[in-house]
């Protein structure tokens, strides 16, 4: 019984998901709104449970799952993202006949991510990874009458299938060489892979598998199309949630299991980090679709987080882990804000081709003042301007990079940040310095609540970073004991 208590948050999310799917069968279209509130409730109680058990450690199911500061921290990230996505989706799924499927999939996807955070075995990790992936494939194509949404899902699932195959291949190489799938077990039997071309192959295959989720160049190409085509709330889940699943999986597999091969994978990650952040920022400059711009910015942010693998000091990992939390709030919030704008555009013109075009943001400060203000803060946070979460996490990460002597990497990252300010500030310019077309639009309440929660997160981490840094530090100590 006490074992099950360790995964109580997961149980709550899973059971809530099942109830929603079942109950939806017997409910009319108009009453399905209640399901959204149920999902929000589930997320809230899971968050409360996770926070209350932050300090506990333990393992269950023959050590296939472990509970420690690292897993709890990432669960908090996933649950927080799931929470704001669920809240915003109450409006998005209003009057939709398939609302129960939507919320069920969001919760199951979150469940998969949470299990990845706890996984201590490659098989558990892979299965949980797939649970999250399959749920999000379906979510991306949720608007089945919308060609863009279907195209987005199609590309996502095809590249996803390829990446899963590569990931499995990588796992089988590792299993073949070490004859275990337990993550600590691999670390103990690593000798065979040392100085061996199979080791390099296994590393690259695993990187490709995780890099697909994290969206590292060149495994990223699905991301812009999918983020743009999928419903905004789903893009928020993908960019803010499932991307982090790739990061925690990579943390566990590389830093715990394959730490002995760090010389090899550090080179790979260094190359990927530099290419990814530069490519993401440069291409984001010329985008006119805001969702697409955010997708490329999300690449760049993944590049920054990847620096933690290259620097590999406890402080750098703290920075990387803090960054995942900060990114969850700011990117999730930004997508939700864009979702609110898309909602406004669609309400006026149902056939709008590119509802998230920059022109839709003209004069948003007048039309949707709260949304515009929140979006401005999120964009500034993404650019790394104080006093926001983005600044704090960049500060910790970049300063640890300099401390570790990798000045060249820090310089590249800071130059990249400077470039990124251009395209973030451009949206702010459209929102506040261009004349508004049309009347003031009453902002839908669920979107506002979700935005304000994300805003609170972004500002809290920026203004009072100490508790968050301490949590991230505890999580980092699990990976790399001091």
């Amino acid at each position: 019984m006490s074992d099950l208590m360790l995964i109580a948050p997961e149980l709550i999310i899973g059971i809530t998901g099942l109830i929603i799917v079942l109950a939806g069968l017997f409910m009319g279209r108009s009453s399905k709104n209640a399901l959204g509130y149920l999902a929000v409730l589930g997320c809230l109680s899971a968050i409360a449970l996770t926070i209350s058990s932050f300090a506990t450690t333990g393992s269950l199911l023959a050590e296939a799952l472990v509970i420690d500061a690292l897993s709890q921290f990432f669960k908090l990230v996933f649950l927080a993202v799931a929470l704001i996505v669920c809240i915003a989706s109450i409006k998005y799924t209003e009057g939709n006949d398939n609302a129960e499927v939507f919320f069920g999939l969001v919760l199951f996807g979150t469940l998969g991510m949470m299990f990845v955070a706890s996984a201590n075995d490659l098989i558990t990790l892979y299965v949980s990874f797939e649970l999250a992936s399959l749920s999000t494939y379906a979510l991306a194509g949720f608007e089945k009458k919308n060609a863009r949404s279907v195209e987005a899902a199609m590309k996502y699932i095809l590249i996803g299938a390829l990446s899963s195959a590569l990931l499995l291949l990588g796992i089988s190489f590792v299993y073949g060489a070490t004859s275990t799938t337990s993550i600590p077990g691999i670390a103990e039997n690593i000798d065979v892979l040392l100085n061996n071309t199979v080791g390099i192959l296994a590393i690259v295959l695993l990187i490709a598998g995780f890099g697909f989720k994290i969206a590292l160049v060149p495994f990223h190409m699905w991301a812009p199309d999918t983020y743009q085509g999928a419903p905004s709330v789903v893009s928020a889940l993908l960019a803010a949630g499932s991307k982090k699943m790739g990061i925690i999986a990579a943390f566990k597999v590389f830093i715990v299991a394959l730490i002995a091969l760090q010389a090899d994978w550090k080179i790979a990650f260094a190359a990927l980090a530099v290419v990814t952040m530069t490519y993401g920022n440069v291409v984001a400059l010329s985008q006119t679709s805001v969702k697409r711009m955010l997708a490329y910015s999300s690449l760049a942010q993944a590049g920054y987080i990847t620096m933690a693998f290259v620097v590999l000091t406890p402080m750098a990992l703290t920075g990387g882990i803090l960054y995942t939390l900060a990114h969850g709030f700011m990117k999730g919030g930004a997508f939700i804000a864009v979702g609110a704008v898309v909602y406004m555009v669609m309400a006026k013109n149902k056939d709008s081709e590119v509802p998230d075009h920059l022109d839709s943001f003209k004069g948003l400060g007048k039309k949707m003042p709260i949304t515009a203000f929140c979006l401005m803060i999120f964009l500034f946070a993404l650019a790394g301007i104080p006093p926001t979460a983005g600044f704090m996490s960049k500060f910790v990460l970049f300063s640890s990079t300099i401390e570790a002597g990798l000045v060249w990497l820090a310089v590249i990252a800071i130059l990249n940040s400077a470039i990124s300010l251009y395209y973030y500030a451009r949206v702010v310019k459209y929102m506040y310095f261009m004349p508004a077309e049309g009347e003031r639009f009453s902002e839908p309440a669920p979107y506002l609540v979700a935005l304000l929660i994300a805003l609170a997160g972004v500002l809290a981490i920026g203004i009072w970073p100490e508790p968050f840094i301490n949590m991230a530090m505890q999580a980092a100590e699990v990976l790399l004991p001091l």
Partner: protein
Amino acid sequence: MPIGDFAFMIPVLPALAFVLTFFFGKKLPQGGAIIPITAIAVSFIISLIITINLLQNPEEVITQSYQWFSAFNVGILIDPLAAVMLTMVTLVSLLIHIYSVGYMSHDPAKPRYFAETALFTASMLSLVLSDNILQLFISWELVGLCSYLLIGFWYQKPSAASAAKKAFLTTRIGDVMFLAGIVLLTTDLFRMVNGTIPEQLYLLRFDVIFSYIPQLSAMNTTVLGFEVTHLTLITLLFFGGAVGKSGQFPLHVWLPDAMEGPTTVSALIHAATMVTAGVYLVARTFPMFIAAPGSLIIVAYLGAFTAIFAATMGIVMNDIKRVLAYSTISQLGYMMLGLGMGAVIGAEAVGISIFHLVSHAFFKALLFLCAGSVIHAVGTHDMRELGGVAKVMPITAATMVAASLALAGFGIPKTIIGTSGFFSKDPIIESAYLFGAESGSWLPYIFAIVAALLTSFYIFRLIFMTFTGEPRTDYGGHESPATMTVPLAILSIFALFFGAISSETFKHFVSETFVNNFVHMDIHALAELGHYELAAGHGHEPLLIVWMPIIVATLGLLLAYVIYYQKAVDVSRFVTRDNPLYRLLYNRYYQNEILTEFFAVKIVYESISMATYYLDRGFDWIVSVLSYIVFEAGDSFRKVQTGNVRHYATAVVLGMSLLVVLVKLVMEVI
């Protein structure tokens, strides 16, 4: 619950009021004025209870500290010094807010006005109750920002916009010095703990700073050939910040221009917030000043000089608000002089200076609000167009006379009869005499006493020109509404009687701040560190010295009466362009020509723009080439994204192959 638990609400409530008024003010009557008024009223009540409690139980100083990040904290410190400031700021700000309801009733941008004044008040309150220098600096900057917004409130007027800019830039010079002082202090403190900070030690909290004073004064450095201690350097940099904020020479130039904002804003800036911040900063860090050789003397001389310098300009101004502006600068000089007198009277200096600050806040707020009342009714600032206003605005006239009596410092020595200004200004002048007697340097005393004569003259010149005689133009006018006259009446009671009832208690209360409270400072030991010789005892000044201020004040009143009421002397004989002295004063010592046009524009601006022009062209070229490359790269990379899934899969496989080759190659090389 102890009242201290509510202390955090003092700045938080006005800050909340700012947010609410800003967003919802438009929908409420009177621009949502009720929100800031309620918030500040509650803040005032809390401050008042805290102050009374502190008076009865001097040991119950409120200290709260929370870790912010690494060795820095946020916290609250309410000792006697902070408590009286909080009470004064909330009270004056409250009255000004109430008055504004009437004064701003015709302005369409009321919600913005009330939101910004609420933020202004919140920043000032948070400045006052900071328990560390960093938090104080942040609030300091917020105060600066709000003053910029409010001075430029009517930003459609070019003169208002440029006055706001001038205020912001001029005080910025001081802010940079203040920041430099903080940076120097922080690095010194880090060096003292050898880079490892003990648990729960917050470096920039005042008690920690003060406990390191002996070490700071032992550190020496050479600046421009002078050997100075770090402590002196830090305190002088802090004082630089105070010079900017509190309008001391030569950074006072922004204050008269700041009149471009609404008169209520002038009242807020000149009385309760902003300008008093500089004086408060010096008072707050007084233990550092008294331990720093030379710093207090510089504070004293600059303060005394500013007092007389501004007063001379006050006597020739024709704009009613400008006279008051120069009067503020002059009075701030007195406060600085009072603090500088710590060189002879020790911690008591804080008491007399802050007492003058508070009583000045009352009568200066009153003067501005009266001026505002006149301007509101007749629509002109120029005293030459006024005259006889007392007939149409009796309440305003009566309260203004009360304020003027306080400003000039009328009262009878050795009794309890006297205006607030009398009880607050005279001790400063007397301590200046003591300073002369102890050190042989009489300059501060002479400056202070002559400035007192001029003060009395210029303020009664204003009274006689505005309120008596026949109207010089046809201005119409009417008495102001009750929301305006009631605050006037309340303030005039304070201006007249506050000093008489509270003078001794107040000064004693505040002087104790550094003696037996939160920070236990041995002022005498510190004074030895600073090479100051504190006078053993005082209060035995010759009778003539005690009576001197009141004599010169009466003299000033009589002069003004003879010239401007009886017209016994033909003013136009002196007030002409041919009189070099008048020309000098009227042109404000050619400060505009020397400081702005010659120094700022010719030397600084033109040389910098010359240098930057060429630099700029170089950078421009680099930047445009760089951005061209980046944008071109972006456009061509964009084409990689074909939208075709087969290409995507190819990229994945190709990327993997490249990675394998890369890792393999690098490993071979290593």
